[in-house]
């Protein structure tokens, strides 16, 4: 046999992170498909199968009841959140309308044609109970909205959280991810030292993967892991203690970091706990993401054409990387053609930086995919400094004309 090749440490680490990312994205994708009924029902466990069909029946009958009740002549009555007691199985009371981050999450309104559950502008991260329990049922039944994680443009300020779209699973489907507990994270960590996370994960269907994600307000801790896999220290995959150790570099940003522990079981159910924070001391004080200015589109463009974008980035810690993402009417992904609105295989970015390297003029060219329709598109700037502080937000709009 030939000599077994060994990748260098950096490449090995990149491959492990890529694999963990695939695992996580794939699990989320399968959860969404399951909610839409695309995963073969026959392959579910028997109790899950029964629960699935019962859930569909209950939701179907409940949706009919709601549509009858919601046809009220009194608009104030119909907008009262949110007790539609048409059926005991479908009571949605104030407790079940989750208020996250102060966002309004579920109210029924009567537009004269039926029920508007008020989720047009909501992100997939918002409104667990109503969105999945009622609104999602419509999607299950009619097969619409295949990619809920893709944001719909309109009001940039209300654009949903893009980094880790999650789907809440209703209890009536009998789908519960691993139970994560006993999380141990040091409160304060010195820059230039190692940090060990410990937690316990238990699931009767066996834990297939579990790990940690670490981030701060404007960045992700790439050196410490984003979706990194933990190591089973003791116990079994049915109920065991896991750990993950990472190195905090000496130039890590001195700020609060949030720790999220995630786990998925062998049936694809996952859970994600944002549990605690820790503080890094003695690191770098730059907590700001690169500042972008002077964004402009150089040319008019049609579908299949090349759009040229110019912008300026500045950051005292130096610019690490940047790209402009093209978002169309349905987000970054064209649901009709099932392609991105821009063909990123054609992406070229050039830079012209000053001597200190803290200010750069950038020019990016990328092809608008030939299948993309004419219309107004938005450029989302994504830029990271040398420390990992990152910005991702909409910048300017431009027209794509035929």
């Amino acid at each position, binding site marked *: *046999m030939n000599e077994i090749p060994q990748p260098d440490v950096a*490449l090995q680490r990149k*491959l*492990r992170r890529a694999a963990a990312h695939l695992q996580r994205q794939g699990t989320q994708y399968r959860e969404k498909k399951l909610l839409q009924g695309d995963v073969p029902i026959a392959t579910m466990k028997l109790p899950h199968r029964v629960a699935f069909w019962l859930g569909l029946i209950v939701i179907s009958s409940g949706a009919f009841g709601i549509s009858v009740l919601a046809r009220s002549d009194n608009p104030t009555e119909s907008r009262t959140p949110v007790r539609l007691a048409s059926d005991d199985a479908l009571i949605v009371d104030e407790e079940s309308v989750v208020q996250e981050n102060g966002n309004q999450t579920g109210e029924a309104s009567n537009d004269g044609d039926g029920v508007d559950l008020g989720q047009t502008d909501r992100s997939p991260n918002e409104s667990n109970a109503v969105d999945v329990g009622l609104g999602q049922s419509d999607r299950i039944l009619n097969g619409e909205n295949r990619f809920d994680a893709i944001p719909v443009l309109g009001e940039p300020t209300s654009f949903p959280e893009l980094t880790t779209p999650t789907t809440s699973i209703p209890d009536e489907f009998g789908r519960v991810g691993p139970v994560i507990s006993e999380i141990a994270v040091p409160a304060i960590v010195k820059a230039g030292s190692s940090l060990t996370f410990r937690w316990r994960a238990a699931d009767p269907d066996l834990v*297939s993967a579990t790990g940690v994600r670490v981030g701060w307000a404007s960045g992700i801790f790439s050196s410490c892991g984003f979706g990194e896999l933990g190591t089973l220290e003791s116990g079994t995959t049915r109920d065991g203690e896991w750990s993950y150790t990472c190195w905090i570099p000496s130039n890590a940003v001195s700020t609060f970091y949030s720790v999220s522990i995630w786990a998925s079981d062998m049936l694809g159910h996952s859970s994600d706990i944002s549990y605690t924070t820790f503080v890094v001391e003695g690191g770098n004080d730059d907590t700001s993401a690169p500042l972008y200015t002077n964004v402009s589109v150089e040319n008019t463009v049609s579908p299949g054409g090349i759009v040229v974008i110019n912008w300026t980035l500045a950051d005292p810690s130096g*610019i690490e990387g940047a790209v402009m993402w093209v978002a169309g009417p349905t987000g970054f992904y064209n649901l009709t053609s099932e392609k991105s609105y821009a063909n990123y295989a054609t992406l070229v970015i050039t830079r012209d930086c000053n001597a200190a390297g803290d200010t750069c003029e950038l020019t990016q060219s990328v092809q608008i995919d030939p299948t993309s329709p004419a219309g107004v598109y938005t450029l989302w700037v994504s830029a990271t400094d040398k420390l990992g502080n990152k910005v991702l937000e909409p910048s300017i709009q431009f027209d794509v004309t035929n």
Partner: protein
Amino acid sequence: MQPDAHDLFPESFEGLIGQVRTRLLPVLWSKWGVDVGSDICSEVEEHAWNHIAELMEMSNPMGYLYRVSQSKARRYSRWLKRNTFPGHLADVGFEDREIEESLRELASLTANQRVCVLLVHGFGWSYADVAELLDIKQTAVNNHVNRGLARLRLAVTNQNSPIVGFEPS
């Protein structure tokens, strides 16, 4: 983490489905990307359900189901109907630039190289496990891994890496 096959009750059909989701699914993600790979896995599970008796008598049902998955994959790749590996690129990009780079570099490998490299050095499988599931010799796995790593090292040092636009990390 490599799945513990002994925990899966492989003598039962449920155990077999568990193995599909823990062993075959990473292969399909590595080869076809997250979305197409997941869809193919669902079709394989459906196929397994419809052929329970035959599968339970096979000596290497996972190898057989891998072949089934290759057949199921054909309709996803005809006429360039869907993006395959790594799936929705833009979804990946703003999570982590390094991961996005890694997936882009992995996408430049051949499918077999990508599968072997990811399974061995990403998911931590042994060469024997990869060879068994793909139904190829360990030397072939070794060759795929060797060539894949060589190409990845080239990509890492490519000064014109388009996404980075700056010094490659």
